[in-house]
């Protein structure tokens, strides 16, 4: 059952992002992360928005998002639900609410994506998330914002 879910999530995300077989393996690697790393999170966010090519490396994705306002993060460090939400907001240029406009960052990015039901379940900005959960979030976001917002 779990294998089937894995295949469905990876396949859907791969198709949505538009990656080839090699990059699909990268997404499967992300799926298997118990604790999502910042580099992988940035890759998912930037690639799903078409900001970097599916073959881009994680440092390029982080650089691209840093140019849009993301704080400096190390590729290998474990990231949080809030940081990942912020990356998605920046990459897909999602306009947030009043407070995100005034104070853009992980806290109100999480609130925005939770309101839109893109982030479901527990929604603490500081909580860690698995690669599987990150891919599900990207899947829901793409169902609303399409491949390239």
């Amino acid at each position, binding site marked *: 059952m779990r294998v089937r879910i894995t295949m469905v999530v990876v396949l859907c995300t791969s198709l949505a992002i538009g990656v080839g077989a090699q990059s699909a393996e990268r997404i499967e690697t992300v799926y298997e992360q118990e604790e999502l790393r910042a580099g992988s999170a940035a890759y998912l966010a930037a690639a799903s928005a078409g900001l970097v090519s599916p073959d881009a490396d994680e440092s390029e994705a982080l650089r691209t998002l840093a140019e849009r306002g993301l704080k400096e993060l190390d590729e290998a460090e474990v990231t949080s639900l809030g940081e990942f939400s912020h990356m998605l907001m920046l990459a897909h240029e999602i306009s947030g*609410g*009043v*407070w995100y406009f005034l104070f853009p960052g992980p806290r109100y990015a999480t*609130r925005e994506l939770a309101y*839109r039901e893109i982030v479901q379940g527990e929604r*603490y900005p*500081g909580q860690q998330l698995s690669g599987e959960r990150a891919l599900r979030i990207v899947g829901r976001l793409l169902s*609303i914002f399409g491949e390239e*917002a």
Partner: protein
Amino acid sequence: MTQRSFGLLFSIENGAGSGRRCRRLVSVVALAVVLGLVGGGSLGAQLDGDFGGTLSLDAQTGTEDDLGLQALLSLWGRGRASLGAESSLTFTAEGGVGVDQELEATPDLDILALQFLVPGAFGARSVLEAEAGRIQVREPSGLVFNHRADGATVDVSLPGVSVRVGGAFTGLLLQDGSSVVMSSADIAALDDEDELWGAPRLVALSDITLPDLAGGQSVLLGGLFQLDMRDNDDTERVDTRYGYLGIDGPIVGSLYWDGRVALSWEERTVDQDTDSGIGLAASAELELFLEQVLNSALTVDGYFGSGDVDPFVGFTPVNPRSTGLLTVQRPEDLVFGRVNYRFRPFSPLSQESVFAQNTELGVYGAGIFGSDFAADEPFQGIELGARTGLRLTSDFGAAARIGVRTRPEQDTQVRGQVQGTLSF
């Protein structure tokens, strides 16, 4: 700021005993929270937390009401300790202060609770959920009790069945924040400026839900026992027991239905004279979702709440559920049927826009009757209404409602309500 308003925090002539009880309860809960979170932390649990609040402004008026204004600032905080294997301990605190047009402030503690969640406690696909403190207690029929109270519930969900038991007390709620009104003593207390606390009722409830039966139907069955904890001197006491049954689920396609019925057995005691009787309440709803037509929904619903008409006595819930009508507040001695249509006019414009996807308009019409159809004039009028909910951003919205009620041989009644909300 009156003594009544701030009596919870600073103390108080008539409520000193209850105040001590309240403080003791708060201390116990606070201690449990600290022990729980510290214990969780020392066991290597992951700790997460968040906080926020809401500022809302509400204005309502009508042909038979003065202008009522209220500003409400609510704050909330939540902390969770993950205890491994998906188990968690969550602490929630919610409270706020309301200010009316006379600048009278009313602080209140809405929620102060610990929740213990253990998935898989009784096998695969089972969940054990226990909650204690000041919590929202809702019996599943919605006809009898849905209120904040101090107590605990334990919920066990197994594949194919969910069982819940719980108990709670309403006498530590501030009177301004309590809608538990069942007796003449409760009504008298509402007019007593020195009365700080809400009506003291002890409630015990138990229910079973059978989800996903044949055809996707869910069945619920439950009972609730309510004990009036007022002193038995000159005041009226009302003890009640309830049994309720509900069924809901899909009928065909996107047409859903929901039916609820509750029977009550009540005993009213004044000066050691006790009257007893059976009350009846029932509700039914049909809802048709029309996603392709401006994301709209058509709802037809009806309600019956018995009055003092043979063979029944007036149905007295522990707290009255909202009728959803602007001109009818109490669900007793009442029958109504209503048609409601709501739609989201901008939903086709943009899937990405919070405003387009969440702004809603609605209209409704209801026929209102007394419960005694043998009476000369059971018909009590028609209410026609409209409402709009504007969601400008995810954290800022506004809503407005207006209702017009025509009544036989009486003036037409009009009520309106406007509300704005900013979350942070």
